[in-house]
């Protein structure tokens, strides 16, 4: 019995060790990216690899700012992602309230239609959307990215799932006091839905901060580009030669994601669980 237990402990220890080792492998691309961003470009490919920065060449970072409008890229990404997030919070929470709390003919049918939309790949609609955006004269503007982005079936679904977990007692009390639907929604549901709204906000912001496909199609000038597109274009512009500066740019793009992640890990994981398990 005793030796069986210590064998179990050893097994657990080996598992944790293996998981940590795998975790190190998962982080290697980031370690290489970060350490390379601080080196001379000609040392980028020195083997065996150096995982920690050996020099601290701030010049690589300065080159990013000198060669591309990096600050503008960050600002554009922030603007586009923030406005889409704000829009989705408004439109999705309204729709989710109707689906979670109100009874009306056609509700289940309409909800199914919403869900079925999750199956439609974006690429199916992208060509007509492109033509539409072009007709509206919105090509190469941020509106082209923002306006189609502020409606989301996923967001509606996520919030509906969340609203269903909120007890109805407070609403019933408010209704007895004569509060209308709008007041109930704004003054009772929304304040209680804080965690659900935060989850959606983080997901949406992260998604549009990282988005590449639509900006590639809709945006053509430096001044309007968002960060992932701008960094890709920078690669072509600097040539494959200056790896260090490209890694400096990518590092600066990943940093905010890391910060958000460390601050909001709980909401992210709850959100994933809510859609994947209770859905």
């Amino acid at each position, binding site marked *: 019995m005793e030796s069986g237990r210590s064998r179990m402990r050893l097994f657990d220890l080996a598992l944790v060790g293996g998981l940590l080792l795998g975790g*190190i492998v998962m982080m290697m691309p980031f370690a290489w990216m970060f350490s390379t961003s601080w080196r001379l470009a000609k040392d980028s490919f020195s083997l065996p690899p150096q995982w920690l920065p050996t020099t601290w060449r701030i010049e690589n970072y300065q080159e990013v700012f000198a060669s591309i409008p990096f600050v503008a890229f960050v600002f554009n990404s922030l603007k586009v992602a923030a406005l889409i997030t704000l829009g989705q919070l*408004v439109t999705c929470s309204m729709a989710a309230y109707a689906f979670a709390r109100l009874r*009306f003919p056609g509700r289940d049918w309409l909800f199914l239609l919403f869900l079925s939309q999750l199956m439609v790949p974006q690429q199916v609609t992208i060509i*007509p959307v492109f033509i539409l955006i072009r007709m509206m004269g919105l090509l190469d503007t941020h509106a082209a990215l923002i306006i189609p982005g502020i*409606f989301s079936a996923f967001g509606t679904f996520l919030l509906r799932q969340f609203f269903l977990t909120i007890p109805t007692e407070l609403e019933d009390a408010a209704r007895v006091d004569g509060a209308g639907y709008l007041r109930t929604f704004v003054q009772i549901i929304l304040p209680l839905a804080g965690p659900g709204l935060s989850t959606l906000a983080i997901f949406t912001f992260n998604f549009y901060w990282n988005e590449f496909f639509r900006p590639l199609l809709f945006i053509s000038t430096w001044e309007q580009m968002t960060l992932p597109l701008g960094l890709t274009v920078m690669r072509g512009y600097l040539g494959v030669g200056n790896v260090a500066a490209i890694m400096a740019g990518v590092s600066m793009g990943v940093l905010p994601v890391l910060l958000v992640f460390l601050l909001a890990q709980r909401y992210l994981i709850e959100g*994933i669980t809510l859609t994947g398990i209770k859905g």
Partner: protein
Amino acid sequence: MGPARVRETVVAYAFLLPVCLGFLVFVFGPALAAVALSFFDYDILTPPRFAGWMNYVHFFHDPRLPQIYLNTVVYVIWYVLLTTVIGLALAVAANRAMHAVFRYLIRTVYFFPVLTSLASVSLVWQYLYSTDFGIINYYLGRLGIQTIPWLTSSRWAIFSIIFLGVWKNLGFNFILFIAGLQNIPRHLYEAAEIDGAARWASFRYITVPSLTPILFFTIVWGFINAFQVFDSPFILTTGGPGDASRTVVMYIYESGFRFFQMGYASTIALSLFIIVVVLTLIQFRLSRIWVFYQ
């Protein structure tokens, strides 16, 4: 209907109006337009010309499409298989009792790549995959494996895209499976232990059935997303060498926005849509056999 019900209905549709309007203009309208467009020749600059079934004839005779669809299917199958199997194995391993610091650390490092931009990490991986100077070949060499021309050989190009995709999104499934494992009531395992069930038996007959709803979700979701892969081949290999790593969405993009064949691009897009919908419906049908809802 009484006046209260009428009022509730009106209010409900008012709340739904913004999202429904958005879907009409940016999803359902364009989806119908894509069907219409597939019967036209349209290069964006000159007015569209009716083409009848021409785009469809072209679609079935396009010599490049079989290879491109094959690449995409290979990507989808390996991507779903690896993210599911590895994600599940990691979750089962990580679900054991361990120090809270380790728990946090492990969850963090496996999940973090999920949040980064695929386009940006593709820029990094492009260098990791370098044949002569990349760190991947360096470490494989240390293990005695021959140099692999990851991005430049038609045999390996699609796998370099698969491995990047698996690395990036593994953590998503990992987190889901962990949550699922923690949802399994403890008393089931205790009962099995009293009955003298072996570890493997309790994994096979308790853990796996309890996780089937999540497995179903990760597989369906993985399929839908993997069929749309674009950023990583676009940046890593630009679809090459030849068409060896070109995916369907890359081909839609190139047909539409490089060669300005909007009609033909819509035809390919519709084929992708039909395949995704049919596969999803088949999976829902099959789920009745293997998914256990408590």
